[in-house]
C-alpha cells in the first residue's frame, strides 16, 4: 500500500500550496463573468455538419478523462473533489450550450495512488478521450504515453493534459501538460542538482507587516522525500525574504500531539514569533493545541499553507483561531463577488474544496481552448494537435477567479489573498477589498538550490 491517507494528503497539499493563478493586482481586478461557453461560441457550429474529428470527439460529444486518486483503500475519496468538480462542470457546461458545439462527457479514472494505474489512466485516455482534464494523480512518474500516444491520424503526438495539480516533476514538465497549480521547476530538461526554482514570498512579506523580525520554525511535511524536497526552496525563499529560522523540522499529521511538543519547545527556547506549517490542517491543529497546552504565547504569526483551507480546519475549534492561510484564488467565502466562484460553489452544492476548484478551472481552460479552435478553424477542427497548439498560447483567467490572464502552460502566479480563521470561519485579511487578489512581481523570488541536498539539513 502506498502511504496512508495523511501522508498522501500532505504530499498533495504541500504541492498545491504552490497553487498557481495568474492574477491581477487588487486594484484592477475584475470580477469573473461566469458567462457560459455557449454564449461565447461562434456561429461556426451551424456552418457545417458536425463530425467525429478525433479520438474522443464524436458528432455530438467530446469525451475527456479526469484522472485522480479516489479509490485507494487506505485513502478512500482522497481527490474525489476533482472528479465531483469535473462532473459538476460538465453538467453546468452542457446546460449552458456545451463545448465546441458538442456535449461534454467526463470519464473518471481512479489512479489509486499507484504509478501503474496512473500510467494506465494515460493509456486509457489515449484510446477514449480527446484530452485529460482536471486530473490530480500524485504518483505519475511515467508520462511516456502522455507525449507519444497516437491520435486519430496515427501521429504520435500524445494527448493534451489540462491538469489541476501535478506532483511528479515528469508530469509538471511534460510538453503536453497545462497545469493549474504552480510549477516551480525550470523544466530545462535536467530536473536534478542545483537549479533555479521559483517560490512564493508574498505571504511572508505580509506577515512581516505584522512582525517585522520574523523568527521561528518551518514545519516540513515529512512523510515523503518529495515533499521534504519541495519545502526546501520555500524555506530558502522565506529566509531570503527576511525570516530567521530557529529550526526547520519534519512533521507528520500521523504523529501524536505530544510529539509536537518538540516544535513548541523550539519556539519557546528560541524566542520564536513565527510558525509556518507546510503540512496539513491535522498537523496545524495539533501544533496549536500543543502550543496552548504548553502556554506558548510569544508567537505573533501562525501561518499555514493552502492545506489548512479545509472544512475540517473550520471545526478544529478556538485553539486554531488566528491562523493565517494564503491562497492564489478568490476564496469560496466570497462567491458572491465573482460569478465564476459562485457558479462553482453552487454547482458543488455549497461544499467546495480547493482540489475541486483547480479541477473546475482546468475544465474552464479546456473549454476555452476548444471554443477558440472552433471559432478560428470551425467546428470540425477539434483535434488533439490543434488543442496542443492552442494550449501553448491560451490566455486564461478563469473568469477573474485567478486574476490576470496566464499565457503559458506552466506559470507561477504572483497573486495571493490571505485569510485568517476565527470562530470557525475564514475571513479575508489581505488585500482588504473583497474579490481581489494582491499581485506583484515581488511576491515571487527565485532561489538557486539543490532540493535533494538541502533536504538533508531538515531535522
Amino acid at each position, binding site marked *: 500500500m502506498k502511504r496512508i491517507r495523511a501522508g498522501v494528503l500532505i504530499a498533495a497539499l504541500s504541492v498545491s500550496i504552490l497553487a498557481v493563478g495568474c492574477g491581477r493586482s487588487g486594484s484592477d481586478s475584475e470580477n469573473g463573468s461566469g458567462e457560459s461557453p455557449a454564449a461565447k461560441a461562434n456561429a461556426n457550429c451551424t456552418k457545417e455538419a458536425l463530425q467525429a474529428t478525433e479520438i474522443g470527439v464524436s458528432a455530438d460529444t467530446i469525451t475527456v478523462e479526469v484522472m485522480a486518486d479516489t479509490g485507494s483503500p487506505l485513502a478512500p475519496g482522497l481527490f474525489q473533489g476533482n472528479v465531483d468538480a469535473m462532473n459538476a462542470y460538465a453538467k453546468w457546461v452542457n446546460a449552458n450550450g456545451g463545448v465546441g458545439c458538442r456535449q461534454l462527457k467526463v470519464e473518471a479514472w481512479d489512479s489509486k495512488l499507484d504509478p501503474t494505474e496512473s500510467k494506465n489512466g494515460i493509456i486509457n485516455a489515449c484510446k477514449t478521450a480527446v484530452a485529460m482534464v482536471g486530473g490530480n494523480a500524485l504518483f505519475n512518474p511515467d508520462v511516456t504515453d502522455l507525449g507519444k500516444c497516437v491520435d486519430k491520424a496515427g501521429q504520435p503526438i500524445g494527448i493534451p493534459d489540462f491538469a489541476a495539480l501535478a506532483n511528479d516533476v515528469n508530469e509538471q514538465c511534460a510538453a503536453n501538460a497545462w497545469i493549474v497549480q504552480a510549477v516551480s521547476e525550470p523544466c530545462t530538461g535536467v530536473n536534478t542538482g542545483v537549479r533555479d526554482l521559483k517560490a512564493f514570498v508574498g505571504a511572508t512579506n505580509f506577515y512581516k507587516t505584522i512582525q517585522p523580525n520574523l523568527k521561528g520554525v518551518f514545519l516540513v511535511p515529512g512523510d515523503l522525500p518529495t515533499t521534504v524536497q519541495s519545502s526546501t526552496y520555500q524555506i530558502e525563499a522565506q529566509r531570503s525574504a527576511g525570516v530567521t529560522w530557529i529550526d526547520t523540522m519534519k512533521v507528520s*499529521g500521523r504523529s501524536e500531539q505530544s510529539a509536537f511538543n518538540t516544535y513548541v519547545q523550539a519556539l519557546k527556547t528560541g524566542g520564536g514569533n513565527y510558525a509556518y506549517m507546510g503540512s496539513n490542517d491535522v498537523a496545524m491543529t495539533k501544533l496549536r493545541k500543543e502550543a496552548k497546552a504548553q502556554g506558548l504565547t510569544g508567537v505573533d504569526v501562525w501561518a499555514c499553507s493552502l492545506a489548512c483551507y479545509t472544512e475540517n*480546519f473550520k471545526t478544529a475549534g478556538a485553539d486554531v483561531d488566528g491562523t493565517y492561510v494564503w491562497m492564489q484564488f478568490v476564496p469560496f467565502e466570497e462567491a458572491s463577488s465573482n460569478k465564476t466562484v459562485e457558479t462553482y460553489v453552487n454547482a458543488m452544492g455549497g461544499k467546495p474544496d480547493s482540489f475541486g476548484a483547480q479541477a473546475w478551472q482546468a475544465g474552464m481552460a479546456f473549454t476555452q481552448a476548444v471554443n477558440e479552435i472552433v471559432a478560428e478553424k470551425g467546428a470540425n477542427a477539434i483535434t488533439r494537435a490543434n488543442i496542443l497548439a492552442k494550449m501553448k498560447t491560451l490566455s486564461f483567467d478563469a473568469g477573474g477567479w485567478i486574476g490576470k490572464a496566464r499565457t503559458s502552460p506552466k506559470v507561477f502566479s504572483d497573486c495571493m489573498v490571505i485569510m485568517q480563521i476565527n470562530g470557525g470561519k475564514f475571513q479575508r485579511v489581505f488585500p482588504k477589498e473583497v474579490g481581489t487578489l494582491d499581485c506583484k512581481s515581488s511576491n515571487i523570488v527565485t532561489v538557486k538550490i539543490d532540493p535533494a541536498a538541502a533536504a538533508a539539513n531538515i531535522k
Partner: protein
Amino acid sequence: MRLKVSPRLISAIVVGLVILFLVNKNWGGASISAKTISSFLVVGIALGGIYAITAGGLVVTYATTGIFNFAHAAIGCFLAFCYWQLTVKQGLPTVVALIITLFVIAPAIGFLLDKVIMRRLRDAALVVQLMVTVGLMLTFMGITLTIWSPKTGRSLPQFFQNTQGVQFGDVTATWHRIITVVVALLVALGLRFLLYKTRLGISMRAVVDSRSLAGLTGAKPSIISGSSWALGCMTAGLAGILIAPETGLVVENLALIIVVASAAAAIAQLKSIPMAFIGGLVIGLAKSFSAVYLEWGKDWAYADEAIPAAILFIALLFLPMARLETGKIRITKRTERLTKPWEAALGAGVMIAIVGAWANGWIPWISGTTFGERSTVWLGRGAGFLVLGLVMLSLIPLIGWAGQVSFANYAIAGIGAVLFSHFGGQNGDALGIVWVMLICAPLGLAIALPALRLKGLYLALATMAFAEVADKVLIRHPSMLDPSATGVLFKPVNFFGITISSSASDRKAFLMFLVIAFALLFFMLEMLRRTRWARRWIAMSDSPAASATIGVNLTTTKMMVFMLSGAMAGFAGCMIGLQRGALSVDSFPLFAGLPLVLLIAVQGVRYPVAAFMGFIGLASFPALFEVLGKPSWLTAIELIGPGIAAIAMAYRPEGAVFYSGRDLAGLLPWRKDAREEKALAVAKEREQNIGKDEIGDMGLTRPFSADKVAQLDRVLDITDLVDEHKMAPTGGAS
C-alpha cells in the same frame, strides 16, 4: 576454571555498543540541560503512556485467549468513534458515554467475536490465527470508514483540556496525558491482579493452557473465553478513547498504532502486563530522545520511524531460545496425496492457457461476449497482479510447508526491485535478475537467523519488524534508491527475442513471460513437494522435536527454506521493477505486504495453485468494477470484503483451494480418493454436530464416547462445554 559467558550478556553488550555508536554518530548537538531533559521525559512518558495502554490490552488479550490480535487497535478505534458519536454528536454526558462504550458496546463486541470467530481458531494454524485477526482489523477499519466518512472532520476533546496541567521545568504535562499514564499504570496493575489473584483471571489463563483441564476444575471455558475477549475489547476501547485526542480521530492513526504496541508487547514477552507498560514507556522515551537529541541526516532520514520496529527486533533477540515441544505432538494434517508430475505439468499448462487466451483476446471470441476483453490497460494490470502472485508463490514453501510465518517477503521483493535497478535494470541486463536472486537468497537467510531460535508468533513479529526496517531504513537509503531520481528507472529487458517492460507495446509479451515464469515456478514447487526437502520442512512444521529425533538438522532445514523463499521473492522484486518501470521510496511498506499473506492464507497457503488463485483474486475487484461500473455497494464490499474473506478462514482453515479442489477433483473418474475424503469429512462433521433429534442414536449408530457426551451436554444446555466441537478439519502448520 573456564569462564562461562551468557549469550544474552554478549547480545546486550553488542546492542548497547551499537546504540551508543548510533547516538554518538547522530547526535544533534542539543545540550543536556534541565530544559531538554524535562522535555524529553515529559514527552517520552506521555507517548509511552499511549503505547503502554494499547500494549497492555494486547498482552491481556493474548494471555487470556492465546491469540495475538492484530485487530486490537482497530477495535479501539471503532470504539473511540462510538464514544465520539455518543458524547460529541449525541451530547451524552462523558460518564454515561464511557459506560455505554466500555461496559456495553465493547463487551458485546468481545462476546460476539468469541462466539462467531475466535472459538474456531483455537486449534488453527498460527498463520490462520494471525490472518483472521488481520482480516478483522481491515473489517473494523472498513466499517468505521463506512459509518464515519473520513471527509468529515471530527475531534475528541482531551479530558480537562481547559485546566492548566502540571509544570515540569519548561514543559507542561496536561491532565489528559497524566490521566493516560496513570490509567495505563492502573490498568497494568489491575489486570495483573485480575489474572493472577482472582479466580476469573486464573480461569482465563487456565483456559488458554487447557480448556479440558480448566473445565474439569469447574471453570466454564466458553463463558471464560467470551469474558476474555470482552475484557480485551474493553481495554482496546479505553485505549482508543484516551489516544484519540492525541492522534486525532483518524482511522489510520488509531488502527496502525498496533505496530508500536506490538513492540511494547514483545518486550513483555506477551506475558507480563506491567512489563508491557514498561515497554510502552521505553518506546515513548526512545522516540522522544530521538526527537530531542538526535539528527539522523539524509542517509537515515526516516530511521526514527523505525525505532519501534528496531526495539521489537532487539526485544526478540533477548527472548529465550524456543524449546522443542515434546508431549504436544498433534496430528494436524491428513496424509496428503502428492500431485503427480503430469498433473503438475497439466496445471502449469492450464495456467499458461488461461492467461494466454485472455492476453490474446480469445475469451470474448470463445464466450461470444465482450466479457474478459483484454486491453493494453488490462494487460498491464494483469502483469501487476501476476508479479504479486510471484511474491505469494514465494510464501508457499516458507509458510505453507515449513510453518515459518513471515511478513517480510514483500519487503525482500522491494529490496530485490531496488537492487535490480543497480544490477542491470537500468541497462536492460537480464543477468542482473540472477545477481539479485543470489543476493536475496542470503537476505532471506539473514531473516532466518532469528528463526533459528524463535518460532511461531515471535518469528512472525520479527519478520514484521524486518519489513518495517527495510521500508523505513534500507530502501530509503539514498544509495539504494535516490529520492531525487524520477521517471522510468528500468529499461526493457530482452529474453530470447522477447522484450519485457512497462511500456504499453511490451505488455502482452511481458504478461506471457510472467505466466510462463509463474507456471515454471509452480511446476518446480510441485516437484519440490515430492522431494525429501519438502518432507523435512513439513515434518519440521508438524513436530520439530520428532524431526530432530529422527535426525533432521533443523538449522539447515530452516535455512534452506528461507533461502529458497528469499530467492523467489528477489525474482518477484525484479519483475515488480520491470512491471512498474518507476520506483519510489515508499513503494514497499509493511502494510502493502500484509494483504498478500492474507490472500494466500485465504486461498490455502500449502498449495502452490493458491498463488494463481490469489492472482485471480487480486484481479477480481477491478474486473467487477469494469463489468458493473462502480456501484457503492461494491465499493463497500471492496473495503470490507478482504477482511470478511480472512475471517471466513475461521470456518475454512485449509483455504479455498483445498475445499474447492477436493470437490472438483471428486468429479474426476480417477480421483476416488477425493470422493472418499469428502465423504469422510462430511461424516465427521455430522458426527461432531449432534442435534437434539439425533440423541436417540447415541450408543446405536453413534459411539457413546466422552466427547459425544460433552456435545450432548452442550446441546441440551446441561453444562458448559468442556471441549467444543470442531466444525472443520484443522490444518496447516501448528
